[in-house]
């Protein structure tokens, strides 16, 4: 679904900006874990690509998003004013799966990642689940949605690396404490945090779902730029698209340590290393052949 949404309200939230957008078609169909993608920079902008931003909440016909000003595109979003219109596509991606019946849920949010968990917390509480939450950030100003999650989760552990708010330390410290009482774990935030949380949950055989971030050119599954190595149901690892097969994946399925590399056992990896003239010499490990470009361009 694609169209113009009016900015109903814009509110600074610590280091971020929360935008409330009138988007009934999206509000009515979106589920926690899904995202939208915005055209940025205005009609004549040189920024061609859309920016993907998680949906943090739904209020009737409106959705809310929390934007952190990183580069020029997200910065432009944070400068939108009430009454402006913004071109948005969504809801996109696969949402967080439901929790096993009766299972107490532990939600772990890092930085603005916490915003994507607010809707999930409300939904889980609505379905009768107990909800605990851990929210962390590098420093106090990078924390997010602690109030909203405070109203929905008990206990709510807040941590900052530099100790400027809540407990000093990384979220994993609190997760290790609370994970024992959990039946399912959900996480959204920086890749390093998702990896640590997945390991903690995996060690206890708990189902764990993580919402990942990867640079996205299209956000709708047609360009293949947002892939990461994910183990499929058949046990084989494939480069899967974060925007359509994700952004939510089973924590135990994502090969965090191999992101940004070409593991030799990825489906189709063997076809990458072939020398044009002859087949790869027997036994040659078709590892990531990171050679500089071979002449003016590379053949297909």
């Amino acid at each position, binding site marked *: 679904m694609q169209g113009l949404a009016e900015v109903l309200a814009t509110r600074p939230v610590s280091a971020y900006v929360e935008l409330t957008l009138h988007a009934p078609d999206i509000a009515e169909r979106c589920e926690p874990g899904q995202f939208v993608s915005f055209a940025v920079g205005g009609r004549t902008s040189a920024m*061609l690509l859309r920016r993907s931003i998680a949906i943090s909440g739904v209020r009737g016909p409106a959705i809310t998003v929390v934007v952190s000003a990183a580069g020029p595109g997200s910065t432009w979003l944070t400068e939108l004013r009430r009454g402006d219109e913004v071109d948005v596509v969504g809801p996109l991606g696969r949402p967080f799966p439901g929790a096993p019946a009766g299972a107490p849920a532990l939600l772990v949010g890092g930085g603005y990642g916490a915003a994507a968990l607010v809707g999930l917390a409300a939904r889980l509480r609505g379905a009768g689940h107990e909800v605990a939450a851990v929210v962390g950030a590098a420093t106090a100003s990078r924390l997010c949605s602690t109030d909203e999650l405070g109203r929905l989760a008990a206990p709510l552990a807040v941590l900052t690396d530099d100790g400027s708010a809540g407990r000093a330390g990384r979220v994993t410290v609190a997760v290790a404490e609370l994970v024992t009482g959990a039946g399912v774990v959900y996480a959204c935030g920086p890749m390093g945090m998702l990896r640590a949380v997945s390991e903690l949950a995996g060690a206890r055989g708990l189902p764990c779902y993580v919402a990942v971030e990867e640079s996205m050119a299209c956000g709708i599954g047609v360009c*293949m*730029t947002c892939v990461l190595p994910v183990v499929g149901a058949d046990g084989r690892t494939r480069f899967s698209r974060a925007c359509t097969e994700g952004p939510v994946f089973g924590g135990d399925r994502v090969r965090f340590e191999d992101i940004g590399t*070409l593991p030799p056992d990825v489906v189709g990896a063997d076809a990458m290393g072939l020398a*044009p003239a002859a087949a790869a010499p027997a036994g040659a490990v078709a590892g990531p052949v990171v050679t500089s470009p071979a002449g003016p361009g*590379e*053949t297909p």
Partner: protein
Amino acid sequence: MQASLGGVPLVSPVLTASGCSAFGQELDPFFDLTAIGAVVTKSVQLRARSGRPTPRMAETPSGMLNSIGLQGPGIDGLLAEELPWLAARGARALVSIAGSRTEDFAELASRLRGVPGVLGLEVNISCPNVESRGEVFACNPDASAEVVAAVRAAADPAHPVYAKLTPDVTDIVSVARACADAGANGLSMINTLLGLAIDPDTMRPVLGGVTGGLSGPAIRPVALRCVWQVHQALPNVPILGMGGIRTGLDALQFVLAGAGAVSVGTAVFNDPSAPVRIAEELAAALGERGFGRLSDAVGYAHRRADPPAGRHSR
């Protein structure tokens, strides 16, 4: 607004671009796939390919760099799932084929003979993204001709064969001529330009593949120049023009330069419904300018004749 691709009639002169529409399924929610000329599928090879490690993209002024490395299911996967899906919906596919050896291209062409829904073949002799020790085929007239001849011979006679050219050559006309002489039914122009971006923080190339393909409105003037030069030299060879098309007036420029049909690639990332919007805008623009048929406008800018009685606002 009827159009054609190497003699095969199209419902519209606007197609998607290879690599910017996967195999059509993801665009289905955004527009009617049967309303566009064809879905040009992601270049497929004999074997499934993982593609390169990420990062695979970098945004650039009015464009982007990509270094995908031709990730795809391989011909078997395509024949089993992707093409049947499109055929079942009555959508047309222009199947892009790629390989690192002439024989690979020929085998792909023969595997696609008689496959339902397949309109024709786009021979990707110019994609700059996949490792190989040799040069890009499309940088060499003879190598290009060899592939085109082999594909033409092996392909379904009913499938028009379009050779896709790279702009990164000293003389694109010589490559175009070699392909046409080798039997290509048309020419797809242009593939991406080879580019690079360095991350000022990591101080390393942004892309895992170091260099990547530049696409989007930034390259439109280069694409138009290539269409202009090739149409000027080979006025009777059909051209599928692409490179930074975002609006109907952009598409009109390609038609006036000599393109009989156009592909819309990177613009889809900004506007998923771009192909149908651009087709509507192009039809209106042609009508306003007094062109009864698209074919009257093809290459019009080359001819000295006065413009038709249509509106001239200047």
